[in-house]
């Protein structure tokens, strides 16, 4: 396992944990009758603001993984890896971890700053495969 692939594994587990956190909170707020139903209509009461923030953080986490996973796989499985890409991959994981409390607690501008950091780390990995 190269460092980029290890970071990808941790990033996926982090996303699953975040998804789990959202699911537990949503079930508590909306009730299992709604969450296990077909959700044809909006729930009677909307999600609380913190849970709604966690939902948006989860959506963004998935988008970030769609960009990060191919980048980590390309670098991790090829000879393009090195100290810079290893550091970038772990910076991505750290940024995505910090993104969650930053979103939930409404820490402006830190949410945007760590989001940008995670994206920049992904770009470093992709560019490493092209140079």
């Amino acid at each position: 396992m190269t460092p980029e692939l290890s970071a990808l594994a941790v990033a996926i587990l982090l996303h699953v944990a975040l998804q789990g956190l959202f699911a537990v909170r949503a079930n508590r707020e909306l009730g299992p009758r709604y969450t296990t139903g077909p959700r044809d209509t909006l729930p009677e009461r909307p999600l609380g603001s913190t849970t709604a923030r966690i939902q948006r953080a989860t959506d963004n986490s998935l988008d970030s993984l769609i960009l990060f996973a191919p980048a980590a796989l390309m670098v991790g499985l090829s000879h393009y890896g090195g100290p810079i890409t290893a550091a970038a991959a772990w910076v991505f994981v750290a940024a995505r971890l910090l993104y969650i409390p930053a979103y939930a607690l409404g820490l402006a501008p830190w949410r945007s700053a760590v989001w940008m950091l995670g994206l920049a780390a992904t770009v470093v990995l992709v560019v490493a495969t092209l140079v």
Partner: protein
Amino acid sequence: MFTDELGILALYGLFVCLVLFLQVSGAATQFDMGYLLSSRDEKRTLEGMVGRMERALNNSIVALALFAPPILILALRQHGDGLSLVGAQIFLIARILYVPAYVFNLIGLRTLLWLAGFACTIGLYLLAL
């Protein structure tokens, strides 16, 4: 193992990042900075070309999620050939043109480009098998 198809995947990944950058820049023209940096508890909708850019971005991300696996499978199985490279190249061109086609509301062309990209993706999965 680094194949030409993987190079296309890397280019498409960078292109999605560029669209993301353009979308954020566009959003900054419609929303104030305070809202953009906040946790966005109040739902606001982007309008016009920026709204289209947002939808084009979301579709580009979905297309990336589907495109990356066959390219990686082809590389790992060393199944790539001239056909898979052409498929990846057509995908890249179609998906790049898709964004301006969406933003400038080129009805018909946008759908055609989406279909071209989707057809290439399916073809790449078949080649990966």
